[in-house]
């Protein structure tokens, strides 16, 4: 330490004229403030602003100059032997010089900056809008980084060694490797982690120059070429280690599994075995992975999807999702073998609705311009594209068959000032590329709740806040039956046998109605804030979620398996199933084969749950 200080003080003494120059520079803001134009902005503000700019520019410039000359100029002039012929260690030589350079930069920065800061006072805060301690910390770190990096550059260039070509190649490779390193994070829009990796690698690289300088003096001694070789060897080896750490960090971030999700959002296909889960990954900053999960095995993989998750085809073998970054709709084939991603060519700026045909071969999407496009997923061709009338409309849709898209349109709430609303049904004929209005219904409510049966032939319409619920023809919207229910009746479901299940959250019952509107029975399930009929897992066996407590949305839930034919509750479990089928498609989820559901428990842990047996397996 004594030697470090001896060298540092000697180096500082040798450059004492720099302090005089800084003192001269410190007067300039005051001289500028005397100019007549300065009065317009306020002299104090002018002094503060000019002082800050001059001090920062000075610090940056001086750090570069000192970085270039700190060691390499003595090496080039063969004057480093002055230290090497004395009982001074390599670490003392390098650290003494580095300390001196850094101290000179910081002290002269203060000499230039402090007078204008003192005179500028609060005007400084107005001019710079940055706390003083942040400015000092930034200047300290940036100047140190510049000294180190320019020491590296100075040594490499001054040695005139052919090794410089190797350094340039390795420098490009290092930058390229860093770029590749952040690509997976960029693709997932994890910008905080991109920043961490980029800054970490840059700081790691700069920090590597500190021990590299010791190695340089210890191994290179007075020979500048040997010095260059030693520095180069250490820096690039350390850079490889830095990249390995960066890579390990990226791998760790990306290694998050479904069990790492905080407050997960879940979704599941209406048939088949696939589900998705997304959410903030624990301890991984802004990384929000989206996993496609095989509920039979627990196998999962992540996709770089936007936070709007995925929706599945009717057969459950394909998923459509929006890729982050270029916002292109992607389709992933999940049926057998390795999942395969297909870029559809349909890209942003935004999609309000995107659904796949039941076999997954076709994709229909409505973009922000209210243009409905249908594409052939595997062929990559647009099959039909039509502009939907008007704006401020909400749409839900599905493929009635592979050549027909049924669209239900309601005005969005903001565009509906009156008390009534109109539901319209359209069909897009894909081969004919024609959009036809097939039904229209005026309803006395500001918003409508719409549920279609699994085939899409019938629609259950509940005007929000009104009495009664209507069973309509899915295409023409002609009324087929009316159910006399109160506004407290909420979640509804059309069973495959044609019966309709409507939940009364106030009474805590499920009402089972015939297709004609006749009430068949009531099943008492218990009180909750919300009651949702989730899916029909076997004929007339319905998974029902009770969420919250009456009048409160506290996170408390129970899932029931209800036999609607017999009117009994077969199972109660403290789990919450994934949403089955997305919001975009109004059809209920009805599976003809027993299967496992993706659920979360009260601690937000994910499980694969067999609703028929109640067996749970941790994901």
């Amino acid at each position, binding site marked *: 330490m004594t030697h470090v200080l001896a060298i540092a003080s*000697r180096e500082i003494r*040798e450059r004492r004229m720099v302090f005089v120059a800084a003192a001269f520079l410190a007067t300039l803001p005051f001289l500028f403030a005397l100019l007549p134009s300065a009065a317009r902005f306020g002299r104090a503000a002018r002094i503060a602003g000019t002082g800050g700019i001059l001090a920062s520019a000075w610090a940056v410039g001086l750090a570069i100059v000192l970085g270039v000359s700190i060691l390499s100029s003595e090496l080039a002039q063969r004057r*480093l*032997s002055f230290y*090497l012929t004395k*009982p001074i260690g390599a670490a003392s030589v390098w650290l003494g010089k580095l300390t001196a350079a850094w101290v000179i930069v910081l002290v002269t920065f203060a000499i230039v900056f402090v007078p204008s800061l003192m005179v500028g006072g609060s005007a400084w805060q107005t001019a710079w809008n940055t706390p003083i301690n942040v400015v000092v910390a930034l200047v300290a770190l940036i100047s140190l980084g510049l000294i180190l990096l320019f020491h590296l550059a100075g040594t490499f260039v001054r040695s005139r060694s052919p090794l410089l070509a190797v350094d340039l190649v390795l420098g490009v490779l290092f930058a390229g490797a860093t770029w590749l390193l952040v690509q997976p994070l960029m693709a997932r829009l994890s910008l905080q982690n991109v920043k961490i990796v980029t800054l970490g690698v840059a700081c790691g690289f700069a920090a590597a120059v500190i021990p590299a300088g010791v190695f340089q003096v210890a191994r290179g*001694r*007075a020979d500048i070429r*040997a010095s260059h070789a030693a520095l180069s060897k250490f820096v690039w080896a350390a850079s490889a280690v830095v990249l390995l750490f960066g890579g390990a960090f990226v791998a760790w971030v990306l290694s998050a599994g479904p069990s790492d999700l905080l407050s997960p959002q879940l979704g599941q296909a209406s048939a088949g075995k696939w589900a998705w889960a997304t959410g903030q990954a624990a301890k991984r900053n802004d990384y929000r992975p989206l996993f496609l999960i095989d509920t039979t095995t627990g196998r999962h993989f992540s996709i770089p999807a936007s936070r709007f998750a995925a929706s599945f085809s009717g057969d459950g073998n394909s998923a459509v999702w929006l890729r982050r970054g270029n916002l292109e709709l992607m389709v992933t084939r999940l049926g057998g073998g390795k999942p395969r991603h297909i870029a559809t060519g349909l890209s942003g700026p935004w999609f309000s609705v995107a659904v796949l045909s039941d076999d997954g071969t076709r994709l229909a999407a409505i973009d922000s311009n209210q243009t409905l496009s249908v594409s052939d997923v595997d062929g990559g061709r647009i099959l039909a594209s039509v502009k939907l009338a008007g704006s401020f409309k909400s749409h839900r849709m599905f493929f009635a068959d592979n050549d027909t898209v049924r669209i239900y349109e309601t005005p969005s709430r903001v565009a509906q000032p009156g008390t009534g609303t109109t539901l319209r049904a359209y069909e897009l004929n894909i081969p004919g590329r024609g959009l036809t209005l097939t039904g229209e219904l005026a309803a006395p409510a500001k918003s409508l709740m719409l549920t279609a049966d699994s085939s899409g032939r019938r629609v259950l319409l509940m005007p929000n806040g009104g009495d009664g619920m209507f069973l309509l023809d899915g295409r023409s919207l002609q009324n087929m039956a009316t159910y006399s229910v109160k506004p407290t009746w909420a979640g509804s479901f059309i069973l495959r046998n044609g019966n309709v299940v409507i939940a009364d959250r106030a009474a805590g019952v499920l009402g089972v109605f015939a297709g004609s509107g006749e009430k068949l029975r009531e099943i008492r399930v218990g009180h909750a804030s919300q009651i949702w009929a989730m899916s029909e897992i076997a004929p007339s066996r319905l998974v029902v979620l009770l969420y919250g407590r009456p009048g409160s949305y506290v996170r408390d839930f129970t899932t029931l398996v209800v036999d609607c034919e017999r009117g009994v509750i077969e199972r109660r479990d403290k789990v919450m199933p994934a949403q089955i089928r997305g919001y975009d498609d109004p059809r209920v989820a009805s599976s003809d084969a027993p299967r496992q559901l993706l659920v979360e428990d009260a601690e937000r842990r994910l499980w694969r749950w067999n609703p028929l047996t109640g067996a749970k397996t941790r994901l």
Partner: protein
Amino acid sequence: MSHEHAIAANGVTVRYGRKVAVDDLTLRVPTGSVYALLGRNGAGKSSLVRCLLGQRKSEAGNVTLLGMDVWSERQRLMDLVGVVPEDSDAPPQMTVRELAAFCARVYSRWQGVTFDECLDRFSISTTARFGELSKGHKKGVMLAVALAMSPEILVLDDPTLGLDVVARRSLFDEVIGEMAERGITTLITTHDLGGIEALADRVAIMKDGRIVLEEETEALKNRFRRIRFAAAPVALSNLATAAVRSWGSGTEAIVSNYDERTSERFPHAEISPLSLEEIFIAVSGEGEKS
């Protein structure tokens, strides 16, 4: 711990690219001796000295000072080795007084009095900046540093370069002589052969990176003679000739294995001893060998 050889270089090779500056060189400097390392410019002396001081790693071989490997123990050894480099390397902005203060902080056995005495001897002002000193005064300051740190080994790389006649005489007669008396091992490279002749215990001559001659000074001078023959040619069989050239109407030969019997063989020849400088010139390639 005492060592037979204060400085030992074993098979040292130094290369600059394809050029071999020092070629598999082995050198032993006995402890307490004054050792003169001679050679023409480019012979490899400076490269060897850099290796001896641990400033450069040789491509092959190793160097020990006081029994310690100079590459790995440089820091420790430099507290025991005083160095006057060929190019005075103290920072130009530093005053002589600042230099002394700096050295006092880094050397464990610094003698300020010795430093001041040495400066007085060369009439050097302590307030002058090093960069403003004459070449000779710079050498003087470096010498003062080398002496004041109480060395066990003194390495002087062409120390008389730039010194005036008085200072040169002072260096050889007083300084180096005093070092020799104190038993401090001194390695000196110099072109001032007249000055070192009386002081050096041993002499080595380098040529093309190799030591071509290494011997005690007295023995060396005893076996070298100039033999001049009035008539030519003369049979010089059994004599090792370092150089043969014409001399007036006769011949002059420099022989390197002279002994008493040689004078008996050539009763009419003029036989005279050689100075170290003349031996150096003959050995390092100036002579015309026949």
